[in-house]
């Protein structure tokens, strides 16, 4: 089964990338953009989806500074 993990900086934790991009956008001609956050996207085929949470905790995400959200996708890839 194909799974997708969205990993984001935890709320309240500084997100330097998001801040820098948000600051740069107006100068690039993109107005009206706010709350930019940049995280990581992990996509993988797993045989046992029940393992994903533990995988996130142990390896894919850093729970001290990141939140993660798991999405199970229909087929494999």
């Amino acid at each position, binding site marked *: 089964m194909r799974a997708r993990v969205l990993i984001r900086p935890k709320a309240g934790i500084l997100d*330097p*990338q998001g801040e*820098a*991009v948000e600051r*740069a956008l107006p*100068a*690039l001609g993109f107005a009206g953009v706010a709350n930019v956050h*940049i995280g990581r996207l992990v996509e993988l085929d797993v045989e046992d989806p029940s393992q994903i949470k533990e995988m996130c905790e142990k390896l894919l995400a850093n729970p001290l500074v990141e939140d993660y959200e798991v999405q199970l996708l229909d087929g494999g890839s």
Partner: protein
Amino acid sequence: MKFGVLQFPGSCDEVDALQAARKVGDAELIWHGDRDLKGADAIVVPGGFSYGDYLRAGAIARFAPAMESVISFANGGGLVLGICNGFQVLCEARLLPGALLGNANRRFTFRQVELEVADHNTHFTRACGAAGREGADERLSIPAKHSWGRYYSSEETLKGIEENGQVVLRYAQGQNFNGSVADIAGVRNEAGNVFGLMPHPEHAVDELVGGSADGLQIFESMRLSVEGAYV
């Protein structure tokens, strides 16, 4: 002969580039927000971490007002050298083909690397091997230091690059730690006036601190080209 060296927020090697350029000519810093290139005969887009390398290395810097001027300057045939982050910026600005991806070893890596000069007849390498390196193999010893240095281009683009002879420098055998395609360390545009490389020639212009002075030949080549010694 005057070099203009761009300075973005987050540039780190701009002063090194300035000092290196001053060994062969005049040189001045150009602030990223200025459109005026101050009459420079050649532009250096230096190394560092413009905008923190956030999003993608070079992705934000390429929109700087100064870069708009550099793009017109390049389109008009002016010499542009991109070093490390500068190479990334020039690729992002599509002045050079391809892109730079995360190192195959997944780490920032600093190493003195050996490079082979693939083409001596460019504005950037014509002095290589000339001075004091009689009979030496066509190699440059130059430090590299980056995390996003894996040169990549699609197969089709790569074919074009090779056919046009746009590869200027290659990592010597065993030196390609970042996993660049076809061992490409430096590449030029079709017209030959824009050149980017990951290793840092500006950090190899003085035996005392550079480990070698081989990088000076790149700046010297640019001077010879600008001064018309070889047109």
